[in-house]
């Protein structure tokens, strides 16, 4: 099985540790991971902000770059969701039958990290060790667009040393929403305040999730208030072992 890492432009640029963690995790599980260097951005930000015309060439590039792989793994629910949920719409906009069929063909092979581990690799215990109190925020697109359900939690429950605490109001949006956090910054802040309150209520040292964009938002609030609570992508917890422990980035 040829496995490609679709890291996302955002992780590539701002959170490279997450990419390294996915590589380390998948290699530890016996997979050979490729990172096709021609990948850039799936087009989600353009698409969600209304710039469909600008998103289209990026979607075409994605299909070209990843078309040859058996599985495409993304440590991002929202970017995987963009491909699976909205690429058919872009294909309609393009009016191209060949692009539409390429999209249909690639969609089922694109997996968010927890989906890949459980559904494709068939593993719930990835052999990780992370001796910390952790709470998990299910990001909106992984929850409601991809329906990953409790897959990330099943993976976390199998991490040795990890104490999982339940997050109140877990399925409520943290208020990020891409350009929403800029266009309606104050409403976004009000949503963030409640998410931060719930995270603090858990007494966790670390808040984890499957999307670094949401974690950047939650972590930005936690850090501004000097709460001493960090954020860490799910991949980095799952990559952590007793021999090679990962630190908390906050």
């Amino acid at each position: 099985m040829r496995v490609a890492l679709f890291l996302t432009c955002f992780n590539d640029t701002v959170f490279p540790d997450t990419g390294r963690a996915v590589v380390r995790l998948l290699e530890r599980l016996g997979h050979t991971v490729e990172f096709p260097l021609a990948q850039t951005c799936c087009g989600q930000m353009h698409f969600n902000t209304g710039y469909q015309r600008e998103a289209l060439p990026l979607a075409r590039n994605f299909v070209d770059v990843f078309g040859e792989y058996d599985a495409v793994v993304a440590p991002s629910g929202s970017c995987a969701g963009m491909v699976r949920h909205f690429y058919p719409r872009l294909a309609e906009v393009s009016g191209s039958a060949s692009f539409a069929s390429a999209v249909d063909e690639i969609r089922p092979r694109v997996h968010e990290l927890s989906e890949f581990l459980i559904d494709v690799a068939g593993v719930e215990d990835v052999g990780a060790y992370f001796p910390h109190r952790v709470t998990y925020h299910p990001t909106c697109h992984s929850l409601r667009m991809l329906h990953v359900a409790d897959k990330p939690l099943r993976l976390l429950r199998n991490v040795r040393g990890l104490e999982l605490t339940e997050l109140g109001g877990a399925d409520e949006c943290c208020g990020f929403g891409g350009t929403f956090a800029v266009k309606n910054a104050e409403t976004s802040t009000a949503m963030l305040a409640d998410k931060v309150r719930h995270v603090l209520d858990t007494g966790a040292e670390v808040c984890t999730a499957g999307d670094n964009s949401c974690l950047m938002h939650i972590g930005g609030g936690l850090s501004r208030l000097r709460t001493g609570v960090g954020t860490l992508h799910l991949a980095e917890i799952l990559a952590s072992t007793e021999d090679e422990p990962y630190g908390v980035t906050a």
Partner: protein
Amino acid sequence: MTFLGMPPVGQGNLHGRPFPGEARKALANDQQRANLRKATGTIRGKRAAVVGELDDWEELRLAGAAIKDQVLYDLPALLEQFEAAFTAAGGVVHWARDAAEAGAIVTGLVQAAGARHVLKVKSMATQEIELNEVLEAAGITARETDLAELIVQLGHDQPSHILVPAIHRNRAEIREIFRREIPGVDPALSDRPADLAGAARTYLREQFLDATVAISGANFAVAETGTLCVVESEGNGRMCLTLPKTLISVVGIEKLLPTWQDLEVFLQLLPRSSTGERMNPYTSFWTGVTPGDGPSDVHVVLIDNGRTRVLADEIGRQALRCIRCSACLNVCPVYERVGGHAYGSVYPGPIGAILSPMLTGFGDHADVNTTLPYASSLCGACFEACPVRIDIPEVLVHLRAGAVDAKRGKKVPTAEQLAMKALGWVFSSPRRLEAAQKAGWAGSAPLGGERGKIGALPGPVIGGWTSARDAPTVPRESFRSWWKKSGRTRPGSPGVGPGEPGSRAALAGEVARPPSDPELTTGEPS
């Protein structure tokens, strides 16, 4: 400019001020936020419990969506079928293209009945066309009889929720409104809900006995039988529907159901989605006139007011499936915090964010409607809760695309257009992305300070973010630059995107070179 045959634009209570500023004001209202948090939380819990009881909830949602889609597909024929059946049963059908026509028709009917006072059954359509204001201008007093609408009316206020119009008020505020506005009310009135309801009941009973004309909306209009249906909780609606001589119902053309049997689906979907009840207490049906039983002068005013405009939009038309249950409001994290007034329309919350701009011909107005498609984080909770499966995030994104496309070709591009274009250019080539990553590090690292995090900064974009959140700096080494040095890339792997055709081989050669910095090849982050 208006062309013959162009669908009418929605008029009425649909044109408030831009969302971000109104939301900012609403966020500062601590009392309203506490009320909304409590009320939406309670309704969410009730809804989840009664929806969870049904094994076939998803099938019901699919059926509801399919029946409504059939209505939209067959709308002209079904409207004529309804007209024929309603007329045959002794009712009179009126057609209104917009709010102004509807207001004039209703005013004329009330004047013909010789009435100066009318009773209102809770109705979104009449709020949409601002009927109370139109009647008042003609010297006719309209009295709301739904308890929450009465609170809003007596408080000289606007509804802020579809189902619970006074959701922004708590019991102390309601007591103050009643003590101030209801003639002869006990000055020692307590703030207990039962006492407040009692005061309203005493006041409304007098109104019911005097009225000769009532005005309602309808939840459903059955084409097959010509039957109208109102679903309610209090029974005040039924008083209005049965006691007066004249009954006028203002109904949107999308409210049709093809057959009586279709009610089976919707009378399961609606109460569970709206009040979180298995069944609502009062469901009233009437089919024209029944001699000796109820009103003898029965009218329906079928309104378009922008609906055919929505119908013409292939993606947006699903909004016309809406049965006004307000489940999307109760689960919306934006609505819960800003309340209904910020949406500047009779239709607040997620459904309002798509319906109001489409009814009004989004893009033509310097008002709330250009901002509503952005009043969402696209979290998708609304779609999940919608009993007729309106994919609200899909329509929001579609409306954003329409807004962006409408601005294309203008001589002076906006800052956002320039930024999106620049990012599109960067992402069209991995080399440019790599250069931008280096520039991102160079630009952001000095802002990081001792903590390595960016604090509050001025500016329209970064200022909004950093007002309440730190921002990360861009690390010196991107993942792709680490990957290339890690020795994992095999020669021949695809290397370059569509921006630079024909250069795959060149890049493969480049990455096959030995890494230049041995310290960065270990595969471990520093």
